[in-house]
């Protein structure tokens, strides 16, 4: 359970030396309580206090980390009910299911299709991170062979689904244990014996919360730590209810056995619907069985939205960026440092035949109109940004193109940059290629 500022204060040395970068121990305690500082920042903190604070800081939901090629990916570690309270920490992993009873050609094609689902949006790579390999054939050799193909041809995390202990025993020899999850195992007791000295995460499936928590307690007692929760549901309301209750039990009631990541197998008929609930309402992994590129791209964007930190919009550093290989006669375009805005605008410049200089103004990560309304993209601010950017040494003209939506700042900008010509661009970035073609010869 989280400690209050005063409770933390009592654990601190009370030297008020300021080495933690705030003047007093009390102020430091407040920062710790607000989770905006780490206890290690105080060099004099006692081991005992460190331990108490460490425990208080362990998130109520267990964190499990996987290997995804060179990268590490984690699930769990969540601390809040609503994303506006702080942020959701680790995004829901998306798993695509593939059955082992496809013939070799079909299987390879399916795998290729899954691997092709990679999209770039706002500078991030969006892709499903997991494959769920479902045992339909009940043929050990076949299953293991398919597993080897997946593990050698992709870097995705693999969910072994519906397997019996005989398969699992050999499967875990084939694949790095940091890359697998066991789901719907056919003989739980025996499987647990097999994996007891590994860290392989195992999904405990149940019909309802009561049954689930009983299972969790039982296996916690046998020292299994990497548990993932999964409850069957008949309709979306049950899915929603189970997820909400589990999250409340762990975060608000301090119920340890509910404090594990949740896996949701999306319902076939309205897969997109259960997926959306899973992403918004607390599932750490969702498994999709039928998927098309159009629905996946939408879902991946949805996930990207829900898991951005509501307190700090994605932003990029201010300064001069080159799009293509601009020279001294290339156009100069300004916009804000909101990532979304930057990626849209630079993308459109790339679509035009003209390379350009892009001056990114620090507008605290706001879109053009939002920044203008908040007085972060005024003529004065834009003018200063241009003067301080050092662009003048790089170009042989004094023309700057501003976003059409802020045509209104052009007067003020002229006052600030009397020697410059201010060109008002179109409103939508999509018009930039056409605009440049017409105006920049």
């Amino acid at each position, binding site marked *: 359970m989280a400690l209050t500022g005063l409770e933390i204060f009592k654990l601190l040395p009370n030297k008020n030396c300021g080495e933690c970068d705030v003047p007093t121990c009390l102020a430091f305690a407040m920062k710790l309580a607000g989770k905006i500082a780490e206890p290690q920042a105080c060099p004099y903190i006692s081991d005992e206090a460190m331990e108490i604070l460490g425990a208080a800081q362990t998130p109520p939901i267990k964190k499990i980390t996987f290997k995804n090629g060179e990268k590490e990916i984690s699930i769990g570690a969540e601390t809040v009910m*609503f994303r506006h309270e702080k942020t959701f920490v680790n995004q829901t992993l998306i798993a695509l299911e593939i059955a082992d009873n496809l013939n070799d050609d079909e299987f390879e094609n399916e795998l290729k299709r899954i691997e092709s689902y990679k999209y770039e949006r706002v500078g991030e790579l969006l892709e499903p991170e997991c494959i769920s390999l479902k045992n339909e054939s009940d043929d050990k050799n076949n299953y293991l062979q398919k597993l080897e193909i997946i593990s050698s041809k992709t870097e995705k995390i693999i969910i072994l689904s519906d397997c019996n202990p005989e398969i699992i025993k050999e499967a875990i020899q084939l694949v790095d244990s940091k890359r697998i999850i066991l789901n719907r195992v056919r003989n739980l007791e025996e499987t647990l014996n097999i994996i007891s000295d590994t860290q392989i995460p195992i999904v405990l499936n149940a019909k309802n919360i009561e*049954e689930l928590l009983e299972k969790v307690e039982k296996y916690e007692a046998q020292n299994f730590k990497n548990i993932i929760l999964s409850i069957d549901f008949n309709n979306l*309301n049950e899915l929603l209810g189970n997820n909400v209750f589990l999250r*409340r039990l762990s975060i608000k009631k301090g119920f340890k056995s509910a404090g594990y990541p949740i896996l949701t197998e999306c319902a076939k008929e309205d897969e997109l619907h259960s997926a959306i609930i899973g992403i918004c309402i607390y599932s750490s992994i969702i498994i999709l069985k039928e998927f098309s590129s*159009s629905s996946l791209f939408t879902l991946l*964007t949805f996930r990207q939205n829900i898991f951005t930190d509501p307190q700090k919009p994605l932003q990029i550093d201010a300064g001069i960026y080159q799009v293509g290989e601009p020279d001294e006669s290339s156009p100069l375009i300004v916009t804000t440092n909101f990532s979304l805005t930057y990626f849209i605008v630079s993308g459109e410049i790339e679509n035009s035949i003209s390379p350009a200089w892009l001056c990114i103004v620090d507008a605290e990560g706001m879109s053009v109109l939002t920044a203008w309304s908040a007085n972060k993209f005024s003529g004065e601010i834009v003018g200063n940004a241009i003067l301080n950017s050092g662009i003048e040494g790089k170009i042989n003209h004094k023309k700057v193109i501003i976003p059409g939506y802020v045509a209104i700042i052009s007067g003020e900008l002229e006052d600030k940059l009397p020697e410059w010509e201010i060109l008002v661009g179109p409103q939508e970035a999509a018009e930039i290629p056409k605009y440049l073609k017409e105006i920049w010869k």
Partner: protein
Amino acid sequence: MEFEKPVEQWKGKVQEIKLSDKIKIGGEQVFPNYSFDGKCSNKPAVAIEINDVFPENWPESLKEVWGNDTLKYPVDRAKKAVEKYGADIIFFDMIGTHQDRENISSEKAAENMNNILKAVDSPVIVRPDGNFEKQNKVFTKCCELAERQIIIGSAHEDNYRTISASALAGNHFLIAEAPIDVNIQKQLNILITQMNFPIERIIMDPMTGGLGYGFEYTYSVMERIRLQTFMDDPFMNPPLICCVGQETWKIKEIKIEDKKYGSKADRGINWETTTAIGLILSGANIVVVRHPKSVIKIRNFIDSLCSTSVK
């Protein structure tokens, strides 16, 4: 395993509004469809957007389903929306009143509106376009001449007086729109009620960006608004409306021609549906969309979500 179900009960409740004999919205005392906590009341309603003029900038796939002939005639559109596509509510977005577009006069706008009111018996939301001066003229006329009760939008922080007064005089419902901001929303609701307009007839529009374009801000602002409702803030209990269609069909992602992104037509529908569902999960009582297939998908979602009977 012994444990108590962590049910949460709240004091406050979303205002229930009866828009017509068939359509009621709001009334819930819990987060969207948390029927395990308490009373969910009415299902979210799905509205279809129609315009007073031909919507040139709609993408082709959308124009095709509706048919160019239908799209030219607002009355035909309204009928098709209700009878064929199953809209609960008509959202009559009068883009043609904008002074820089067709500049349709306030009299003509009111006439267009009445034609819609006669053609369908669903609730109708009426929203003029243009600068505040033009909008004020249209608000006044529409509120005055409407042949039955309408929902008029939108009152803003800088322009709420004329519209509130007209809506009050005509006994209409009023949409109060604030730019994704809990405090401005509350302030606006207070200002409107200070003009003697009853809070029971307000619907809030928290404004939404499309998925990928600010959706996540609205998502969280609506959750925060609802937390205030349930903590019994008397100025934060009106139902919520989200205009999803107009934010969806203009964005770049649904226009990309590339196999990797899947069928373009499906992508638009998925984008609209996904945005709408996300907003329903965070509290929308009305979602406004454009594509008939989105209506079906959103309905299916709502039915499955509301399928557990209230205990």
